[in-house]
């Protein structure tokens, strides 16, 4: 394992050489090059996967259970390290990063999970505020930003409720608010609609799309093929640890605004328009 890491470091150094020339544009926000991940026990999570995601993109990562989707997320968070190959976030090789820098990396990546991962003994406000307290945001800033982000996700009225008093969709909105409150350049969502009904799912997707419109790169991992096909975004399909499809640009109109997006997806999925539109729709 240690030897493999050294090898990947050497490779990283070699591949960095051409970069000494002035770069024409900012590096991709996510860049995997020949990343291979083998779990102890021999299961191959990813096999020589190369993926590049530019800033501002909205990308779906699809595939059946065990295809390597979660491995991809864990590599980006440096929960795992690849056996070989490089993983770069915002141009920085995160496998070269020292352990003490990992929290800094995670502050620049918002994460949303299927099971929300909210703290049950804290209110909605405290759950979101915690993400800011961790990075040392002054209390006055927290008091200003948290209600603002909660209004944006449509939970302005439930700020002092506890998570178990909220519906699944509302809990997921809290977790998105927590992930986005520090305005990270990258948002990873691992099966964000896995536990939710279709209508609620569209609302969540709409929220993620709205966040994407602010310039944040959004990567959504899902196995909801229908939703993905209707959304017309870039789709990366994994199977058995390999990329078998990467359908990118040209599939969708980039200037679609949030409500147009929601209306189109709803009509294509055959879901009725909801009566209670988010109150923060005009914010972005």
């Amino acid at each position, binding site marked *: 394992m240690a030897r493999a890491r050294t090898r990947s470091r050497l490779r990283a150094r070699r591949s960095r050489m051409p970069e000494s020339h002035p770069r024409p544009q900012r590096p991709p926000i996510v860049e995997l090059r020949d990343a291979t991940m083998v779990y102890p026990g021999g299961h191959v999570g990813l096999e020589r996967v190369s993926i590049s995601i530019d800033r501002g993109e909205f990308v779906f990562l699809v595939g059946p259970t065990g295809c390597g989707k979660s491995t991809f997320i864990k590599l980006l968070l*440096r929960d795992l390290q690849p056996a070989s190959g490089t993983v770069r976030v915002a141009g920085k090789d995160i496998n070269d990063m020292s352990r003490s820098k990992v*929290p800094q990396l995670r502050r620049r990546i918002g994460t949303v999970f299927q099971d929300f*991962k909210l703290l049950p003994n804290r209110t909605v406000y405290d759950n979101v505020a915690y993400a800011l307290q*961790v990075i040392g945001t002054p209390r006055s800033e927290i008091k200003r930003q948290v209600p603002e982000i909660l209004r944006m996700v449509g939970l302005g009225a439930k700020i002092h409720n506890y998570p178990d008093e909220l519906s699944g969709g509302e809990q997921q909105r809290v977790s998105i608010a927590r992930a986005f409150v520090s305005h990270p350049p990258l948002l990873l969502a691992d099966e964000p609609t896995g536990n939710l009904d279709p209508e609620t799912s569209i609302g969540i997707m709409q929220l993620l799309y709205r966040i994407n419109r602010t310039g944040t790169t959004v990567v959504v991992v899902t196995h909801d093929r229908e939703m993905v096909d209707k959304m017309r975004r870039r789709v990366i399909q994994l199977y058995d640890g390999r990329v078998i499809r990467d359908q990118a640009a040209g599939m969708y109109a980039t200037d679609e605004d949030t409500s147009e997006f929601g209306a189109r997806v709803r009509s294509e999925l055959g879901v009725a328009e909801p009566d209670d539109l988010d109150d923060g729709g005009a914010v972005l």
Partner: protein
Amino acid sequence: MSRLTFFLSEAYRALRRNAAPSLAAIVTIAVTVLLIGVLVPVLDASGSKTDDVRSQLELKVFLFDDATNNEISNLQDKIGAIPHVENVEYVSPAAALKILEDRLEDKSLLDQLNSNPLPPAFNVKVDNPDNLESVQTALSPPDSAGKPQPISAAIDEIVTGEQTQQIREVTGAVKILLAVIAVLLAIASVFLVGNTIRLSIYARRREVEVMQLVGATNWFIRWPFVIEGLVVGLFGALIAVGILFLGKVTIVDPLSDNFALVENLNTISFGPLIAALVTGAMVVAALGSGVTLRRFLRI
């Protein structure tokens, strides 16, 4: 500064929200501290009692009745110069008779004696009972034939108390036993407290996971747990000290008025004992929290 208040409020929140595991930890620490608080003085007292018995072991050097004053004082200097000899006390026949008289219940027995049959003697105190033999050898080194020859013609006989060997063995065993009990108790306490803390942290591993997810540094996560450990340790120790104090007032103090044995206990006094217990409990609980958390903090 705002960090500190944040950590304190986090620790307070955790204690209030996880009342059951916190209470379990407090009770565990209270019981452990109580156990140590009772056993430390007991072990300490039995240790010092053992030392007391051992220090009374001595050599007796009996002299011939016709030993001259000159011989006696020469010999006293000689014995005093032997290594490990702490004290040499001359007991004249008259003094010996007086001691015997004190010990006898029926003093009339002595009236039947025409003369004093007791020889003059030296009581030789040794710094450590283990050195009794070497001192004895120095008093009568073996000659070329291997037969012990006393260093002075005035010496009639050298006696180590009959039970010296036995007492030495028994007290030695007692000391080892006490040490083993103390070590086992210390190990058991650390494991007991550590395990309780591990359980209460295990119940909150999800919280730790979320903290790491939003980019909290390890120390940022750890501080509230350490503070919580300090508070839990403090409360547990205070409960135990309260019970100890009650026990001292209601049981030990009345006893020491009536029994010389309890009164003479040469053991650690209450104040330092309490200070040590409280500090120890807080340190162990805080360290326990911080160290246990390591298992959950691996990135």
